[in-house]
């Protein structure tokens, strides 16, 4: 009985906490006449996909999403590759000054992006990286790399060195031992690092806002930001764009949920 009460209580709390997402979805499928209405229409009787059609055609949300995908996927790939190297190195070798390296990672992970954006803007301007995908991708990699290394290192630490040595004795080259033994065993960590760096880059705002002035290259976060001004009161379009923008988050929650909690925890607190 007590357990049922607890479940009902937390069901109410969760419903309240997640209610904004319901309102996003509901607003996006309402006909415009029902969006701005008092008393509010809690459940529409005339659901429509007009707002989605509108953002696809007028707001070219497709292009924004494609740009986001390109930026997030490239940033994720580069972050994971660099992160695997460093995470493995920090776990497997006796590194002099290990503490200093870990400290540098912890500090750079906590630095504000807004403080780095000005010096990077000036440097990127000099080396012609403004208004390029490369500039935003490089900044994203920098932003999430410390976090990713801190997630990956514990996974590599857990793999016994003896396993690797055994493979070497059996005639595996160093590279083959890494690919056949180490990477598969660390795969859960690599997957969670990949997912998190993808989602973080997907939602990144300040670098894209500052480095990409050309509409053609902006990701969906900036597309939505621009639309706030243009479509000040067109909330059904804004909500439809938002629904598009959270598709990857929803997919991850359906298919990969277990990978993110642990990764977030470890990365946020310490190694």
């Amino acid at each position: 009985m007590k357990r049922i009460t607890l479940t009902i209580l937390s069901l109410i709390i969760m419903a309240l906490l997640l209610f904004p997402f319901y309102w996003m979805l509901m607003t996006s499928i309402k006909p415009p006449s029902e969006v701005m209405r008092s008393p509010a229409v809690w459940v529409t009787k005339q659901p429509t996909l007009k707002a989605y059609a509108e953002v696809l055609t007028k707001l070219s949300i497709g292009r924004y999403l494609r740009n986001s995908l390109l930026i997030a996927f490239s940033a994720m790939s580069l972050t994971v590759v660099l992160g695997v190297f460093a995470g493995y190195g920090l776990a497997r070798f006796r590194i002099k000054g290990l503490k200093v390296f870990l400290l540098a990672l912890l500090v750079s992970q906590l630095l504000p992006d807004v403080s780095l954006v000005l010096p990077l803007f000036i440097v990127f301007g000099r080396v012609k990286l403004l208004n390029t995908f490369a500039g935003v991708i490089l900044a994203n990699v920098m932003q999430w790399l410390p976090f990713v290394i801190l997630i990956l290192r514990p996974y590599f630490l857990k793999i016994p060195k003896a396993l690797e040595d055994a493979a070497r004795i059996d005639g595996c080259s160093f590279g083959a031992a890494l690919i056949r033994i180490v990477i598969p065993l660390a795969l859960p960590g690599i997957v969670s690092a990949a997912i998190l760096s993808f989602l973080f880059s997907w939602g990144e705002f300040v670098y894209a806002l500052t480095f990409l002035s050309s509409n053609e290259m902006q990701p969906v976060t900036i597309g939505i930001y621009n639309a706030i001004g243009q479509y000040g009161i067109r909330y059904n379009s804004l909500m439809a764009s938002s629904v598009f923008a959270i598709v990857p988050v929803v997919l991850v929650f359906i298919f990969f949920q277990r990978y993110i909690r642990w990764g977030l925890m470890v990365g946020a607190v310490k190694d």
Partner: protein
Amino acid sequence: MKRKLSRSEQLVGYLWLAPAFLYLAVMVGYPIIYNLVLSFQDVSATTILKQPKNFIGFKNYFRVLTDPLFLRVLKNSFVFTLGCIFFQFTIGFSLALLFNLRAPLFGFFRGLLLVTLMVPTVVVSVLFKWLLSGDFGLINEVLINLRILKAPVAWLAEPRTALAGVMFTNIWIGISFNTMLLAPGIAAISPTLHEAAAIDGAGPLKRFRYITLPLLNSTIMIVLLLGFIYTFKIFGLIYAMTGGGPVNSTNVLPIQAYKLSFSFFEFGQGAAANVLLLAILLAVIAVYLILVSGEESMEG
């Protein structure tokens, strides 16, 4: 027994680290130093292309600090940060305590909570802009129906309520963050302690006060410090919701630093504001690191 590594073996270790750490040195280390240099130079829209730039000592800092707006910005920053932490910590802690009890669906709920941390902040910004809107925003409607409000409030357009509106939004994000970090610590407290105290006649409140809180002491400190660091540097959420307005009522230090550079093109002053922001954060980060390394050795 660990044998002594030969020089070449040690070198191999550094080769593995080299790509990532060289990358970070170029992309984090260099910009931080360059920002420090900029903060002592005359760099504005008219002088940005001039080489070499004029060294002007502490003039940028002087201008930033003597701007009457700066005190307001600093106050906003601390009100925003401490207010958010107070609510998100209290609510997050309560939720973590609740989810520590065993009941159907709790594991699922805990996982679901994380969604607020993964959604792009701009999406949260527009969503809450809509919920808090003065014209047909749902929050007004609910408050009026509950007879808490008489007439709709344009939460984000009123200087008196805008900061509260932005804080409300960020607290919504922060609750999950606090629950996520506190839950494992609460789960690690042995239930036998509570059982023994219960036998001795201690009620739930007393057990919370004399068992849960003392045992979570260092976890709580870490969560609060991390909360401060992550909240004090928030930029995108507020920038997309209000742009720091109306009349600077939501202008916090990161927004002011950004606007000095990218709205007013006073890059030197923007860099000086950045240094001040970094100084405040690094002081808190230092306390956090001392706590974390005292908690357990970083050797992992």
